[in-house]
């Protein structure tokens, strides 16, 4: 579904490439998480997958990037609508402002795609149900909480039934309630496995529970790629600027101090930690 070959991209008027010699293949239906320090290139990768890099931001791109059969170098974002969906961190900035109700907000993309009204109604109902917004369908998008607005952004994108969904830190500006709501929807998507999902997030415990695969970026390069429990417990994480859960930290220190038998795999989640310490 996504094939990246030796991708190097530099924003205009900068000298250091934001992405360097990146090669990656994400098969259809996979749930792939991207972690890394701020400035590592995660957002740039999200924009590259949706065509904003290079078509919106200009700059210099080398290498090849193919998403859902399209070569990004020659495919602008408008041609990817309906194939690739993007959700980013700020819920308010994803409200179009052109719509007076939640229902119409979800319809916005479908109208631009020329979907016939009967099909639109059905897709909107589905998207609202999936994101738990059915009761809020007639409310103004501006009268929603941050978490609700983010769910609305998700609904609006999911209604377009994209093959690939790209999420750039979808919960970093939400409170715990909103974060829980958004991740519940993503968990459902992960379970369905018919959409390819690329998620940038610092929520390591959640990623470890639901993602199929974790990729670590540092200074524009891919430095690790593998199953979550393996990648999120690697000792180099700190030097890569990536954190670890408290569960991993406690377990690693316990091993170093000889408090537990050696050789146990380090935990990332609560349930793994319980198993580790028992």
């Amino acid at each position, binding site marked *: 579904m996504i094939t990246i070959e030796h991708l190097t991209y530099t924003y205009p008027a900068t000298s250091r490439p934001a992405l360097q010699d990146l090669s990656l293949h994400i098969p259809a239906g996979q749930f792939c998480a991207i972690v890394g320090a701020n400035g590592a290139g995660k957002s740039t990768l999200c924009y590259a997958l949706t065509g904003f890099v290079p078509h*919106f931001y200009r700059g210099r791109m080398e290498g090849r990037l193919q998403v859902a059969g399209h070569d990004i170098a020659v495919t602008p*974002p408008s041609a990817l*609508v309906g194939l690739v969906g993007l959700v980013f961190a700020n819920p308010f900035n994803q409200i179009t402002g052109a719509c007076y109700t939640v229902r119409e907000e979800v319809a916005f993309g479908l109208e*631009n795609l020329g979907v016939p009204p009967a099909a639109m109604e059905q897709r909107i109902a589905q998207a609202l149900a999936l994101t738990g917004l059915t009761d809020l369908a007639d409310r103004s998008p501006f009268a929603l909480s941050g978490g609700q607005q983010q769910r609305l952004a998700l609904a609006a*994108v999911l209604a377009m039934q994209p093959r690939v969904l790209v999420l750039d830190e979808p919960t970093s500006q939400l409170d715990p309630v909103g974060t829980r709501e958004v991740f519940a929807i993503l968990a459902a998507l992960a379970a369905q496995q018919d959409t390819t999902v690329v998620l940038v997030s610092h929520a390591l415990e959640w990623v470890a529970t639901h993602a199929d695969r974790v990729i670590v970026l540092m200074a524009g390069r891919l430095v690790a790629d593998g199953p979550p429990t393996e990648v999120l417990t690697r000792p180099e994480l700190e030097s890569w600027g990536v954190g670890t859960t408290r569960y991993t930290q406690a377990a690693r220190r316990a091993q170093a101090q000889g408090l537990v038998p050696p050789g146990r795999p380090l935990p990332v989640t609560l349930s793994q930690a319980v198993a580790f310490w028992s």
Partner: protein
Amino acid sequence: MALSLYLPRARGLHRLHPLTKLWLALFLFICGLALPGVLGAYAAFVALVVPLALWGAVLRPLLVAAGRVVLPFAVSLVLVQGLFWPRGTPLFGWGPLSFKLEGLLFAVRSTGRILMVVSSFLLFALTTRPDALALTLAQRGVPKSLTYILVATLQIIPRFQARAATILAAQQSRGLEIHGNLRRRVRALLPLIAPLVLGSLVDIEERAIALESRGFSRQGPKTSLLVLPDTRGQALARRLLAVASLAVVVMRLWVG
């Protein structure tokens, strides 16, 4: 939280197609300006605007809003024209100042016109949702980028205002004193305006990306969830209104 005057109603004037309401407003506007006599505009207001406003169940809001705009004009017109009309017939006064009849009549006539202009706009705005208007325009070939600006501006300005208030709070929290002499207030302007502008640029970029990824600039046929019912009766009515407007103008020019 949007900035529009629109008041939702289930029946009545609201259910007309936006174009019909637009032609109605235009007709009222022309009547207001072109009908002769001191009281011509008032006659049109009572005979046309009031019944329409009743039909739309917006009479009270219309009177309140119109009053807010028209009254200040009325007061200043009466004072200025009444007192300073050159070589007029004095009605009453004291000392060197006196109210002239011609001046008062002029003020009354002008107020009537302002009332009709304002009311025709208000009648339209109170009964038409901005996105319905935007869709009407888009269906008639106005580019979606322009109709978007129409609607989005109304919805986003209150947020802008809220942000300005937050910036004021933030800068005061850094010791910026906003009370005091004029010089101090002028110097306070940059720390208040710059974050608003710069921060908005960031927001605008993100919103542009969001719009783009929802197909805003995509070529090809577009559909609409919102349906604007139109009838042949209304289409005929619009044509009649156009003719009537023209007739009023012609009559006014002919009568002089």
